[in-house]
């Protein structure tokens, strides 16, 4: 009894020390893994840039960005990526024209007019849409959109910028609808109530008060939709026909930046010039989507601060 007491203290001190050490290690782990995102993002930038060096040195930024001839396998290879950039922009623009008006209108309806039950059901269905893999969208496009475009416009082939754009527009819908719906939802009800109390109808309230209050979030939704569309690979690869020439109309085959990387990387010599040029294309994609996401995020943060959600 007399020496039992100091003994337990000693033992529990030892245990505490071990526990403290274990805690310190675990806490260290947590702190380190907090930075994973930055490490990965930086690693992506470094690896893309490092592999691009050869092409930037031997071909140069200018010729790649504005050159209009993409014959990577001829001798010497021609690496003008302008048709690819234009192809990506064209397909993305078609997608936006189709999905932004419909997506925003749907979001406004779900947020401001629909009953709670309809809204919940619609959101579940839209989430399902977002979960469909892009290769399956490509397959649906091959089965339905390509033949439809071919027969409606009387073309020899339905593999066109328009076909890719239509499917891409559908794919970007969930992003646009759910993010702009969130933005509208975040507007405090007191604003709506004040407007309704002043005698405005629901629609007047919506377009005079709610939409302006949510405008930055809606802008972010559109930006993220653009990011999604421009970075999409498999569906456009399966639907646009992949001819690397400057398109003049939307009814021609185009090749996008993403499609080029996907189609050609499998056949290049590792470390060769063509390989390196494809990394330059990847770097451009990375930079563009990075800028778009950054803009969207900054705007969303502003909105969050404004309404304190």
């Amino acid at each position: 009894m007399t020496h039992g007491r100091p003994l337990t203290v000693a033992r529990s001190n030892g245990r505490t020390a071990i526990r403290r050490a274990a805690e310190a290690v675990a806490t260290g782990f947590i702190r380190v893994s907090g930075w994973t995102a930055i490490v990965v993002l930086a690693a992506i930038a470094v690896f893309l840039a490092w592999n691009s060096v050869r092409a930037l040195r031997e071909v140069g930024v200018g010729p790649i960005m504005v050159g209009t001839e993409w014959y990577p396998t001829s001798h010497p290879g021609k690496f003008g990526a302008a048709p690819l950039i234009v192809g990506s922009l064209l397909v993305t623009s078609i997608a936006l024209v189709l999905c932004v008006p419909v997506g925003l209108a749907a979001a406004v309806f779900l947020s401001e007019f629909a009953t709670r039950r309809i809204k919940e059901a619609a959101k579940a269905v839209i989430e399902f849409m977002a979960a469909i893999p892009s290769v399956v969208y490509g397959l649906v496009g091959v089965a339905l959109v390509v033949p439809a475009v071919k027969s409606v416009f009387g073309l020899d082939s339905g593999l066109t910028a328009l076909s890719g754009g239509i499917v891409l527009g559908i794919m970007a819908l969930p992003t646009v609808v759910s993010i702009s719906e969130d933005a509208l939802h975040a507007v405090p009800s007191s604003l709506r109530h004040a407007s309704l109390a002043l005698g405005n109808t629901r629609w007047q309230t919506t377009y005079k008060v709610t939409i302006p209050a949510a405008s930055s979030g809606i802008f972010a939704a559109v930006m993220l939709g653009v990011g999604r569309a421009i970075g999409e690979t498999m569906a456009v690869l399966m639907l646009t026909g992949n001819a690397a020439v400057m398109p003049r109309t939307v009814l021609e085959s185009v090749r996008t930046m993403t499609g080029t990387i996907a189609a050609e990387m499998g056949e290049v010599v590792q470390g060769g010039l063509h390989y390196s040029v494809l990394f330059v294309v990847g770097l451009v994609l990375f930079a563009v989507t990075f800028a778009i996401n950054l803009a969207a995020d900054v705007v969303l943060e502003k909105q969050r601060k404004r309404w304190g959600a």
Partner: protein
Amino acid sequence: MRLSRRQRARIFEAVARALLGTAAALVVGVAGFLLLYIAFRGIPGLSWEFLTDVPRNRGREGGIFPALVGTLYVVFGTGVLTVPLGILGGVYLSEYAPRSPSTRFIRLAVANMAGVPSIVYGLFGLAAFVLAAGIGRSVLAASLTLTCMTLPVVITATEEALRQIPADLRHAALALGASRLRTVWTVVLPAAAPGIVTGIVLGLARAAGETAPILFTGAVFQMRRLPDGPGSQFMALPYHIYTQVTSVPNWNRDLVWGTAFILVATVSAASALAAVWRSFKRRRTAW
């Protein structure tokens, strides 16, 4: 006929409601159509042989067993890597991160990671894991690549789930003498589990359907045997659909749609189950 201001507002209201409702119905209609169409085209190709046989005649006959197993391997590998890292990252952001510019920076990075195109992850995986790290085209390289893609989903889901746990719970644990880590481990994380698990399932479901990141990191067109370890190449369901459609003349419509149906059905069933489970758990917890 002159309309009063109020009458005009009422007409506008009705028109706006109709137009917006049509747009919403269109979006939901497209989604519903996709669901039915994929089922309608996919179900005829399904059979026991389809699920358990190897592909024959370049995939025009036989089944998708190696692709099914390959996708499971890669998703498993991605899960093993993503789950601990993602949860720790989310715990850091919610429980440890100071309110400082550096934390804001991390959040920006997480949001930005989610927006990096999948083909860029593919390039990164090729350059970093396949070549620089010398792993070669393999299940492991593909899993690492998909981990980078899935991480932001799990980090964000964890952070949001932890945020919804009331501070009272933390204070109670701390007042009983539990350390910060113990509080997180025994009180906060279990309470947030439904939200975290849903995030993990959604992230992995997306990884299962991705093609672009595995194009150059280990997926192959056809394999008669199963991958025999993390160093082996593999077949995958999404890649199988892509190669059939683009490089097999006269591809078998029934089998390819069957593959698409299996992929979509698994992915959406997993997501739906997780979401239902979460809302069930939420209803039972009251705070």
